[in-house]
């Protein structure tokens, strides 16, 4: 029995939540975490008691218009948000729980739980889901490439081989030979086009050789051909100064934003605007589709992981990512990256 009491005592001492026990508003005992908290913030315990008292009197008052009383009364104990240190610009967020231990002896406990570990755990969970999403997208892409290779390209080459066999195997006059060779040529042309499209999907070589704007134009042309939606590109930017990483991200965001619009919004027109300003470059992808309620979708519902992924990619390169959308008002995706302009004097080293 004594040993159990000892264990309970050490649990109380080592608990990560700061706990204070009061009798008749006088501090009886505080655990280690509690003492550390008092020392660290130079904390006045009467401040905490005052907060608790206010919360109790709020709860007990029968004032009209207390729409959340129902919810508060459902809580098993009184829970009060506390920022420590008070009136500080960067306070730490705590949750204070008020628990009555013995009403007759006026003994109660105040427990302060830090929300920082919880927040961090949430962040880690979010990161994991994002990783999972990226991995799945990666796997899906490979699946699609493999399917395309098998369905379009292998089949096209196979038909061409059959045509060549026919050319060699059969006795035919000149006119017939011409028709067979025309057929083979058309099949090979189709296959060539598929190969080029796949190469463009995987990694646009235009991006490396002719720059971002040319790559975006090529992308827009191809997606217009595939979707029947008109995609305009307006560009006023010299992107040769941008780092490859930024160019890649801008290209991928354009690709994903257009794909999202085509997938979900049923637009008739999409406009991509890439403009360089004095100290930043901005990319906008605007569609006139159905739009969506961004606030309702920004939570953690699995559908918005694509948006979150875009946002994370931009943020990792110090850019900003914004979405403006409302039902029936279309969607605008805006990305901005800071740019250091190399003026002539600087590049000459003078």
């Amino acid at each position, binding site marked *: 029995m004594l040993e159990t009491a000892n264990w309970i005592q050490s649990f109380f001492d080592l608990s990560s939540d700061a706990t204070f026990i009061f009798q008749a508003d006088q501090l009886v005992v505080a655990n280690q975490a509690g003492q550390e908290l008092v020392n660290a913030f130079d904390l006045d315990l009467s401040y905490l008691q005052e907060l608790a008292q206010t919360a109790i009197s709020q709860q007990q008052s029968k004032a009209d218009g207390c729409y959340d009383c129902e919810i508060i009364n459902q809580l098993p104990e009184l829970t009060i948000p506390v920022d420590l240190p008070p009136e500080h610009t960067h306070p730490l967020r705590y949750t204070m729980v008020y628990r009555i231990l013995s009403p007759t002896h006026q003994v109660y406990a105040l427990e302060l739980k830090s929300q920082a570990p919880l927040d961090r755990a949430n962040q880690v969970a979010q990161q994991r889901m994002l990783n999972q999403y990226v991995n799945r997208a990666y796997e899906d892409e490979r699946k699609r490439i493999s399917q395309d290779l098998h369905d379009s390209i292998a089949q096209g080459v196979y038909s061409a081989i059959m045509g060549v066999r026919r050319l060699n195997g059969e006795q035919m006059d000149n006119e017939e030979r011409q028709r067979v060779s025309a057929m083979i040529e058309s099949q090979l042309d189709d296959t060539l086009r598929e190969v080029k499209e796949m190469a463009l999907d995987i990694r646009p070589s235009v991006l490396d050789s002719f720059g971002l704007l040319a790559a975006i134009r090529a992308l827009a042309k191809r997606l217009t051909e595939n979707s029947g*939606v*008109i995609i305009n590109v307006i560009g006023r930017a010299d992107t040769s100064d941008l780092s490859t990483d930024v160019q890649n991200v801008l290209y991928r965001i354009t690709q994903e934003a257009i794909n999202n619009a085509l997938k979900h919004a049923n637009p008739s027109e999409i406009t991509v605007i890439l403009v360089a300003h004095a100290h930043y470059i901005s990319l906008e992808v605007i569609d006139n589709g159905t739009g969506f309620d961004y606030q309702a979708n920004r939570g953690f519902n699995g559908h918005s992981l694509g948006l979150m992924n875009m946002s994370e990619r931009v943020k990792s390169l110090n850019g900003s990512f914004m979405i403006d959308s409302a039902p029936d008002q279309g969607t605008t995706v805006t990305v901005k990256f800071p740019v250091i302009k190399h003026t002539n004097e600087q590049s000459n080293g003078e």
Partner: protein
Amino acid sequence: MNAEQPQPLHNYQQLVTSLYQQTDYDFVGVALQAPVSPHLTRWLWVAGNQNERFRQIVLRRGIGIAGLVLRTGTPFWHNDILALDLSDRLYSPIARAEDLHSCVAVPINNGPFGTVNGVLLAGFRDEERQVNEQDATKLSQSLI
């Protein structure tokens, strides 16, 4: 008609116009593969179109309802084509551009040795209207 466009054995414009007038399809169109390199397949003759977006479309073999007809040489039809996702193999840009809920497409076999070199497609915008195998057969017969 410029050199890139195939010389039709049929008068396709007349065909789509008369089909459009004699049936209650909301849209009728013919896509043909160009006889010269790069052999792109585009919608060349249409009737009942809402806009000019069809001109932008380049058909891909095996993709979309018309693309499948091009590849397989057999008729295809679908009654809820707009519900399909961009990543779906049957996602059809022409249905999207023309707002067609149901489409039926049949092959045009005027390529060398009777190979498929085009597609005749017809569709309804009205969600209530459905297409079936009979519609495909009738459409094929109109090509003869």
